């Protein structure tokens, strides 16, 4: 029996969805920041790339629609993947992203392990922080979509809700955007790529596959389950080809570098803006 050294973690559709999220998220962050910082040099520079305040707004709105569309398509895809006959296992089993009691236990166990108490938890396919990242998008996008829609169509909104809810919508839209952007850049990018075991780049989301040897350390229970049930053979994957690897290294570093520049500039220029 030939031994499997690499297995698939993310399908092509998952990776395309993630890429679409990266692109729309970046576009929305940049155009949104241009609008928020419009009275600073940084904001003016950003807006000039998009042809000014008005066209940056139009691009922001279209990118928002695109992101929402991607979100809906993703939900439909997830629903097709569910096995309704054994829905309990499908929803709360190890392959599901729904948080269970196990995640809370693993979180506690892992925090203790940080301080050298006890052993590191043996994770299944999805760890608690991966689940958190996933569900953060699930309340982030609907909130940003609804408040964004209210602000695009204020007159129509005021027919269903009092006009002052637009004040609230603007506050929520900004606060949620600030939370999402700072979380993605500070936590998601930094921890994802700049740990000693993942440096220089965590390739999993781009290559789609992981080395079994590496994953046996990080997600021991998942690998154990796969070898027990014999699913390992089905998930066998080839390592990514060189040109593709080069491509995503360039792309990944472009995004990471712009992300760090973005957060630095946003913090520096925040002293010159007034949140009206």
């Amino acid at each position, binding site marked *: 029996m030939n031994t499997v050294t690499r297995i698939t973690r993310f399908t092509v559709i998952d990776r395309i969805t993630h890429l679409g999220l990266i692109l729309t998220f970046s576009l929305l962050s940049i155009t949104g920041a241009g609008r928020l910082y419009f009275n600073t040099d940084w904001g003016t520079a950003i807006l000039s790339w998009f042809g000014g305040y008005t066209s940056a707004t139009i691009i922001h709105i279209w990118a928002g629609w695109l992101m929402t569309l991607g979100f809906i398509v993703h939900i439909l895809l997830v629903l097709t993947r569910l096995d309704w006959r054994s829905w309990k296992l499908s929803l709360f089993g190890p392959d599901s992203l729904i948080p269970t009691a196990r995640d809370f236990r693993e979180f506690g166990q892992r925090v203790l392990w940080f301080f050298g108490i006890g052993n590191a938890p043996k994770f299944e396919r999805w760890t608690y922080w991966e689940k958190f990242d996933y569900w953060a998008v699930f309340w982030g996008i609907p909130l940003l979509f609804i408040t964004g829609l209210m602000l695009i169509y204020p*007159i129509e909104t005021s027919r269903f809700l009092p006009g002052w809810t637009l004040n609230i919508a603007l*506050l929520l839209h900004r606060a949620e955007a600030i939370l999402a952007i700072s979380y993605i850049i500070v936590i998601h990018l930094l921890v994802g790529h700049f740990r000693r075991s993942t440096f220089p780049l965590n390739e999993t989301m781009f290559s789609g596959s992981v080395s079994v040897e590496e994953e046996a350390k990080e997600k021991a229970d998942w690998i154990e389950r796969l070898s027990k049930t014999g699913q390992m053979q089905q998930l066998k994957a080839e390592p990514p080809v060189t040109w593709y690897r080069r491509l995503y290294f360039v792309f990944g570093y472009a995004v990471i570098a712009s992300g760090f520049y973005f957060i630095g500039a946003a913090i520096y220029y925040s002293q010159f803006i007034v949140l009206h």
Partner: protein
Amino acid sequence: MNGSHLMHNVSRLLLVLAMIPACTSGWVFASTDVTTDARRYSLQESSSGYYEDDIEVMPHKRTLPGSPANTTKRTGRYADVHRLVKDYSGKIRCTSCHVNKADNLHTVRGNITCRQCHGLDPIAGADFYYAPMNSIRKHAYVCAKCHQGATPSFATFVVHTPAAGDAKTRSSFPTLYYSHYLMLFLIIGVFVVFLPHSILWWIRDWLMNKRRGK
């Protein structure tokens, strides 16, 4: 008998004919009665100015819990709120007395002036019955200048948004105040958990790999 019947019909016809110009030109004969400016002004301004399917829409007084209260200082029912201000003239900048009032989306982003909404002198208090800023017609006389189709509901948008985290906002605009702190605590909560978590993870990861000699 016949003659009086004819006369009755003729007089009826004349009355109907006389009513045609009256109906089409808005009671031209009656409006000549208007002798004072105040009366003409009230005729023009007592309408809310907003109609939906020929029915006049009056602002609804219904408010939801958490609605903003009147955030501006009560300016009273006076036709000229600046009547007691010494040396008041058009040369004084609005912001030299109304400090920070220009820090709002309309001024900063919409690039419009105070006077474009508040009007020329004399500026009436918002409670002055005939004031354009009176909430019964603000949407039509102020908002709809730019926002086509503005409704009384739309006009409840707080243009001079108070600082969301300010203690005073708790009573003047409770929903804004609580939304602000909800989001602030959410952001702080996320980072209080995940920032130390990430740092500790990073250190542990470093040490673990060092031990392994990787």
